[in-house]
């Protein structure tokens, strides 16, 4: 899979420009982190990249094909989206929730087969959440729900996973589980783009990073992007980077 985003611009209808001339690219099995202060446009960038919001100008191609010209079926067989896991009010069982990830591939008049259910369960085992199979989604903790949503995205065997703040609101252990899950997808050649509030997480697991600095963005290898200088320019925070650790020092 090759994702190529070229000079993407987006402004809200009758509103100000949010994204300006953003370019980046991603190859098979690569993990990319999107960072920036609150309200910089991280979530908007994800939505425009997937084509959920229509770009004002610029091109976004996956394997050479323009995303805006792909049929929804074809597009969503390559890309899967994991939304922010606000607590769910759905009383579907986790297994049923994961099976919804196959909705695009199942005929309107039918439902998942026994085989589908089996592969959903296998996937849950792989992600070590098989105990949740019969549990209802509205009874899950934030970390459990996030893993269920990731499983729902993975079941359609996508080539690119787009995650909106997958580790937000999770405890230490669950943050690591989610980050490791993304890193493990490398072996299957699945690429990930994720929004995050934590520069350390980018340093720990991402190959590439895109950082919003005021109106502009910096893109490149994570170590080149997440620097003391860039953090100061983007977040207005003086920080010290030691290996993979970032120690925030003071607000400018």
């Amino acid at each position, binding site marked *: 899979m090759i994702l190529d985003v070229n000079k993407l611009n987006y402004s809200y209808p009758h509103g100000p420009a949010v994204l300006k001339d953003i370019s980046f690219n991603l190859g098979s099995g690569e993990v990319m982190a999107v960072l920036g202060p609150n309200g910089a446009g991280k979530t908007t960038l994800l*939505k425009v990249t*997937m084509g*959920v919001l229509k770009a004002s100008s610029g091109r976004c191609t996956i394997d050479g094909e323009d995303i805006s010209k792909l049929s*929804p*079926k074809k*597009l*969503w*067989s390559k*890309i*899967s*989206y994991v*939304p922010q896991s606000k607590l769910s*009010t*759905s*009383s*579907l*069982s986790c*297994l*049923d929730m994961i099976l*919804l*990830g*196959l*909705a*695009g*591939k*199942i005929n*309107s*008049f*039918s*439902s*998942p087969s*026994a085989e589908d*259910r*089996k592969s*959903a*369960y296998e996937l849950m085992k792989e992600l070590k959440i098989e105990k949740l*199979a019969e549990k*209802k989604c509205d009874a899950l903790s934030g970390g459990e729900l996030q893993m269920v949503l990731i499983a729902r*995205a993975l079941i*359609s065997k996508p080539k690119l996973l787009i995650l909106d703040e997958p580790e937000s609101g999770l405890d230490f252990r669950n943050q690591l589980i989610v980050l490791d899950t993304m890193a493990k997808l490398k072996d299957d050649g699945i690429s990930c783009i994720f929004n995050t509030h934590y520069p350390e997480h980018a340093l720990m697991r991402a190959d590439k990073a895109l950082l919003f600095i005021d109106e502009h963005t910096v893109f490149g290898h994570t170590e080149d992007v997440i620097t003391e200088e860039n953090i100061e320019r983007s977040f207005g925070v003086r920080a010290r980077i030691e290996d993979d650790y970032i120690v925030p020092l003071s607000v400018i």
Partner: protein
Amino acid sequence: MKEKNHLLSNIILIILPILTALAALMLGRIFIAPSEVFSALFKDPDIKPLILMTVTQIRLPRILLALLAGAGLSVAGCVFQSLFDNPLATPDTLGVASGASFGAALALLLHLGMVGVQLTSFTFGLVAVVLTFLAGSGKSKGMSAIVLSGIMIGSLFSSLVSLIKFVADEESELPAITYWLMGSLSGAGYKNLIFGAPAILFGLIVIYLIRWKLNLLPLREEEAVSTGVNIKALRVVTMLCATLMTASVISMCGQVGWVGLLIPHMCRMMVGSNHKRLIPFSISIGAAFMVAVDTVARSATASEIPISILTAIIGAPFFIYLMRRTRLL
């Protein structure tokens, strides 16, 4: 991970409405023994004409109507809840029922005939649900916003119904409209059924067939879109079917409230919210419930009680219980 075998519960779901209907054929102003009911149904030549007439011409069409109306209303309530991701969204709370009532009353005033009643009822039901949606879904999108705007639109159409009553002819039209509004299945005959039943059946069949996909309805917009399903089309189809069923029921037997709230919630408590199971449960239990309530309405006292009074007596306390239990408003 195999799906559980639901054979037993499926058999119960099929038998329940049939048994209720058979019991309802026996009960009423005169009691008819089961053997006589069967003789009448199978047109035994030895049967007394009075019994034959009561079973096949009076009770049977009315029970068929009750089965359809109960199934239609509860499935409509069920999908409205999912469509708006709100447990309190029903044909009544969304204003659909009031809109459809206004349409039907208007058609009665203009003497448009049964098909006219159906069409105007459907049109105004649809207008009401779209208005409610436009008024109540915004950025704030709280759980109660949609229900509040539904109540607003509902009362708007209720006052329009009052306006129609006001201009209606006191001698002929007003009593007809008023009595019909109270909700009754007593007008049931095969002629009415032929006009009204196909619309309800159509809605039921479509919803039944696409029931697994309905699980996508409560998801957030981009979540649903990212499954690759045409979620807009799914929403439109569901909304049209639910409104069609509500309007058809209303044009045949007036405004029978609460069924669309009561039954889907009972079913959700029993089987959870996977529509693959939820829809069959709603159909079966809704149909049986309506037949049972209608049987009480027509046989409990010497003169018939309007069915909406009975459903409200059961429904209102349940609504309060639900509100307190879910803490949504």
